[in-house]
């Protein structure tokens, strides 16, 4: 009864309909228009570089590529980083440069004098960086004896170097493993990847990942607006005091509202999942399509995005104001999107809110992060339920007159806002 009432209330909200339009637009302009034709096998006879590139995962290649790049950056004392997806040129102080040198020595066995000698023989050139010109160095390729160092120790070192640089560098272990081990695919590699689409993904698995990638972007932020609009509606229509006086328990009220929000906001997503299944059955007519994957993966992937965004919106609106909820959720979403930088496939870590895998292929990369992905989605699912429980607790306190929102500057603090 209350659930149906809440659903009706949400369906009458303008913000909810804007949300539906945005979800539909994202689906139609990004996913649906991208997937109007079936995938065809690669044609043989092209040169290796024409197919695509793939991370080899070979430890020797990674170590050698990383160290050669690091030596050039060390000589130039200019390290390009993207801490939040944006360009940052880092110039280290002497003390940190010494640490980098010590790490290079540990990996390569080259001491200070030998490194200085290589620097003297470097190709020097000037690059314009802003209004200044900088001298940069390009050393001859250095062969690294990878027997000198274990791969685990190498990972520790580059992780520390990334910390010294403030994060977001090419030397973060995951970035180094990706950037410095890329090799061109052969025809056989490309064909194998194509076959995986049918044999391992049952077609629908790959499309489900692409669908979830696109929809995950908007579901990481849009639900917060609907949640705020609904949470603030009582105050706006001066109904909050009336609701406070009702006999219904705070937990039942808040959780019912939350369930109604999630149900209503997931309906457009479900509709699009069904549209995607129909599209797949049409373009792969006659092939065996694992329909259950197109239903299961998006639900497991997208529901936590929706839940956490809505839960945070409800909690912060109840504790502070709607504006605070928007600012916080926008910051979380923005950082999650930008931290991935240009890595659009396999960008899944333990706490990435917006997981990215913007391709039908590269299944191996996705599977490499499978455990992180499962942990990640489960974590956000539980975290959102915990946030709703806290919201119910705050609501109960407000109801009893023990709490009236957080005032930043005392009793009549000017910073306290009501949505």
């Amino acid at each position, binding site marked *: 009864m209350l659930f149906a009432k809440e659903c009706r209330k949400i369906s009458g909200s*303008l*913000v909810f309909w*804007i*949300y539906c339009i*945005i979800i539909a637009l*994202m689906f139609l*302009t*990004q996913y649906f228009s991208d997937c109007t034709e079936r995938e065809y096998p690669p044609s043989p006879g092209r040169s290796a570089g024409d197919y695509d590139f793939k991370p080899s995962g070979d430890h020797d290649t990674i170590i050698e590529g990383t160290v050669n790049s690091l030596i050039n950056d060390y000589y130039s004392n200019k390290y390009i*980083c993207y*801490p*939040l997806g*944006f*360009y*940052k*040129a*880092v110039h280290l102080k002497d003390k940190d440069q010494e640490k980098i040198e010590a790490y290079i020595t540990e990996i390569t066995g080259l001491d200070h004098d030998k490194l200085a000698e290589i620097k003297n023989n470097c190709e020097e050139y000037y690059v*314009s*960086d*802003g*209004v*200044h010109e900088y001298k940069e160095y390009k050393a001859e390729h250095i062969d690294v004896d990878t027997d000198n160092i274990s791969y685990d120790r190498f990972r520790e070192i580059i992780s520390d170097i990334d910390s010294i640089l403030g994060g977001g560098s090419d030397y973060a272990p995951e970035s180094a493993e990706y950037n410095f081990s890329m090799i061109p695919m052969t025809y056989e590699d490309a064909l194998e990847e194509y076959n995986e689409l049918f044999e391992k993904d049952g077609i629908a698995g790959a499309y489900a990942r692409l669908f979830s990638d696109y929809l995950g*972007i*908007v579901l990481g*932020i*849009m639900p917060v*607006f609907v949640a*705020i*609009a609904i949470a*603030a509606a009582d105050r*706006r229509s*001066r109904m909050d005091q009336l609701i406070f006086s009702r006999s219904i328990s705070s937990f039942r009220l808040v959780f019912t509202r939350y369930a109604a929000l999630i149900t209503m906001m997931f309906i457009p997503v479900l509709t699009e999942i069904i549209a995607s299944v129909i599209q797949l059955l049409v373009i792969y007519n006659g092939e065996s399509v694992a329909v259950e994957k197109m239903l299961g993966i998006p639900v497991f992937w997208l529901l936590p995005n929706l839940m956490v965004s809505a839960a945070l919106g409800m909690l912060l609106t109840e504790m502070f104001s*709607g*504006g605070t909820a*928007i*600012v916080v959720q*926008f910051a979380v979403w923005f950082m999650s*999107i930008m931290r991935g930088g240009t890595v659009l496939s396999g960008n899944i870590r333990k706490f990435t809110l917006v997981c990215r895998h913007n391709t039908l292929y590269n299944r191996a990369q996705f599977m490499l992060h499978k455990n992180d992905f499962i942990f990640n989605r489960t974590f956000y699912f539980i975290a959102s339920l915990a946030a709703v429980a806290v919201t119910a607790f705050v609501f109960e306190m407000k109801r009893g007159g023990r709490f009236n929102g957080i005032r930043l500057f005392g009793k009549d603090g*000017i*910073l306290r*806002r009501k*949505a």
Partner: protein
Amino acid sequence: MVSGCLAKMVFSDVRHNYVIHYLTAVGILFLTPLLFGISQLDSILSAQPLEIILPLMGTVLMTPVFFPEQNENIRDVVRSKKTSYHLLCFIRIMCSVLMLSLFIGGFVIYMKSAGCNVTAKHFAGSLASALILGSAGFFAAAVSDNVIAGYMTSVIYYMSNFTMKDKLRVLYLFSMSHGRFEEKKYLVIIAAALVAGGFAVRKLMRK
């Protein structure tokens, strides 16, 4: 006498209704150097922080112009005063534009002192992006009488600049980062039209 009264009104309104928004804008301003490296940047790289982060201040300052009186009872009380409600809202938006100019101008000067190749064009371009982002939110809030719909519109517009940059044409916010400036004049014109349109709609709706 009149100017003294106006100053008093502006001060009182800012104190009671707008301090939190100004503080949020200052927060964005201080966050920018943490997200971007802003020393010794050339003209194109300098445009990035000025176009990608600072325009968000427009959303924060221009969208909530009608927010303090969103409750109809409060709006009725404000309407009963001698000063026109729409004049009050117009003053708010002018104050927001002034503060945006000061914040962005201050940041451009800071970038200049850090050795970046920034000019008055960078200032104008960043301000234009902030104005269009803010006025989109302002217009949506005015039409829907719902400030959350305003914020939502502004955020959607901002997001679309990452996913649909080729389709936005003159509405593209980050053109300076690609070495272009022509779009900015259209942004200012459209922003002015949206603000005027927002007030016109409110007047027609007698809100």
